[in-house]
C-alpha cells in the first residue's frame, strides 16, 4: 500500500471538515471496495477519513409504514433486522459473510457499482436517501455507472424504505463473487408496482413496460414476453447483453411468482 493519512471522524460534521480541508480525500465506510482498490494500487488517496465511529449512522428504525436504515448499517444487520422480508433477503445474499459483516448500505449505494444489489432495492421499493444536508428520491439518486447525484464530500446518513404490500428480489449471481449478473426487485407499494433491475445496465433502472403489464395482471406470464432493450447492457466474459436481457425476464418472472 502507498502511505496515506488515516483519520477517524467522531461526527458527521467532523468528517465533513476533514474532507474539505484535505487534499485528495476519500471516505471509508465498510471498505469493501475502497480497501481492495488501494491494495491493488488502483486508488491512492492522500487522506482516508474513516466514518466507522459515527454511531448515529448505524442501526435500523422501524415504524408501521417505513423502515429507516443508517448509512453505516452493515448488510448482516439489515439481513437480520429488516422487517421488509425482500430487503432482508437481498442484504443476506450480498457477497460472502466477511463482506456482509463489514460492508454498509451507505457505502454500497455511494459507490454505485453497476452489479451491486442495493440499488435495485432502493429503486424498486421507492426509497429516499438522506444525506448530511438533503433528501434524494432513489429514482434521482443513481445517475450513471459508479455515479450518483451526491455532491463532492456529501455523506449518505440513512435510507428510508416505505413498507411495501408485497416485494421480492431474485438475482442470478456470479458464482464466485455473488455480484448480481442480473438482479430484479419487484414490489407493490401503495398500489404502485415497480420493477427495478441491477447488474444488466450501467446502473439500476426501472422496467416501466413490466410495471404496467403487472399493474393489470400480477402474474409471471405478464412479463414473460416483455421486450428488453439491451443496446447499452453490460458485456463481459460471464454474460453477453442478449443473455442479460433474457435474465431480466427470467428473474422478473421468478420474483413475481414468489409473491403473486
Amino acid at each position: 500500500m502507498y502511505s496515506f493519512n488515516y483519520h477517524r471522524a467522531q461526527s458527521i460534521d467532523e468528517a465533513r471538515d476533514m474532507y474539505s480541508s484535505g487534499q485528495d480525500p476519500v471516505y471509508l465506510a465498510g471498505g469493501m471496495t475502497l480497501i481492495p482498490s488501494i491494495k491493488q494500487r488502483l486508488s491512492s488517496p492522500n487522506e482516508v477519513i474513516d466514518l466507522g465511529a459515527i454511531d448515529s449512522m448505524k442501526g435500523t428504525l422501524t415504524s408501521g409504514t417505513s423502515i429507516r436504515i443508517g448509512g453505516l448499517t452493515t448488510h448482516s444487520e439489515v439481513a437480520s433486522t429488516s422487517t421488509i422480508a425482500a430487503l432482508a433477503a437481498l442484504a443476506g445474499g450480498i457477497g460472502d459473510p466477511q463482506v456482509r459483516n463489514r460492508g454498509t448500505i451507505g457505502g454500497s449505494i455511494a459507490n454505485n457499482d453497476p452489479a451491486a444489489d442495493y440499488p435495485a432495492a432502493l429503486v424498486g421499493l421507492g426509497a429516499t436517501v438522506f444525506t448530511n444536508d438533503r433528501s434524494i428520491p432513489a429514482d434521482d439518486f443513481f445517475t450513471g455507472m459508479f455515479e450518483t447525484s451526491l455532491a463532492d464530500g456529501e455523506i449518505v446518513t440513512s435510507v428510508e424504505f416505505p413498507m411495501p404490500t408485497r416485494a421480492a428480489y431474485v438475482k442470478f449471481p456470479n458464482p464466485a463473487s455473488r455480484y448480481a449478473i442480473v438482479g430484479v426487485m419487484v414490489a407493490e407499494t401503495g398500489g404502485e408496482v415497480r420493477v427495478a433491475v441491477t447488474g444488466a445496465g450501467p446502473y439500476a433502472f426501472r422496467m416501466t413496460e413490466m410495471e404496467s403489464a403487472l399493474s393489470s395482471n400480477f402474474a409471471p406470464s405478464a412479463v414473460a414476453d416483455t421486450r428488453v432493450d439491451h443496446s447499452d447492457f453490460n458485456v463481459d466474459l460471464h454474460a453477453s447483453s442478449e443473455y442479460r436481457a433474457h435474465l431480466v425476464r427470467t428473474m422478473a418472472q421468478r420474483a413475481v411468482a414468489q409473491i403473486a
Partner: protein
Amino acid sequence: MELQGEADIPAPLEEVWNALQDPDVLKECIDGCQEMSRSTTTDYVAKIRAHVGPVRANFSANIRMVDVVELSGYTLEVSATGGAAGFGKGVAHISLQEEESSTKLSYEVSGIVGGKLAQIGSRLINGVTNKMAAQFFEKFVDRWTANE
C-alpha cells in the same frame, strides 16, 4: 473490447477534420486529459487521468495516425500504459462524411486491456469506453453549438 458509433457534428467537413487533429481541441474534449501534444505530424502523446468509481489511474498514451485519406478518414493506433493499473492497446477507424449542414463522423474501435484493470474490471470496460466516447462527442459537438 469493441465499440462503434456515429456522431452528427454541426460544422463543415473541413472544420471538423482540422479540429480532430488539433491537440488543444482533443485535450479539451477528452475527459481527464491533462496533456496532449503532437510530436510529429502523425504522432501524439497524451497523459490522461481516468476515474471510474474507486479506481483512479494515470495513463500515458502514444497515438499514431495511419492510412490518412485527406478529408475522409484515418486510423488511430493507440497504446497506453497506466503503471500498476495495467495497459491498453487499440485501433480506431474514423471516417467523415459531408451532410447537408453537418458532418457525420463514424467510428469503430477495437482494443484489448491487460493487467490489473482487466483482471478486476473486465465487466466494466465496455461501459467505461462507451461513456468516454459519449462524453468526447458531447464536448466536441458543444464547440459549435455553444457559440451560437
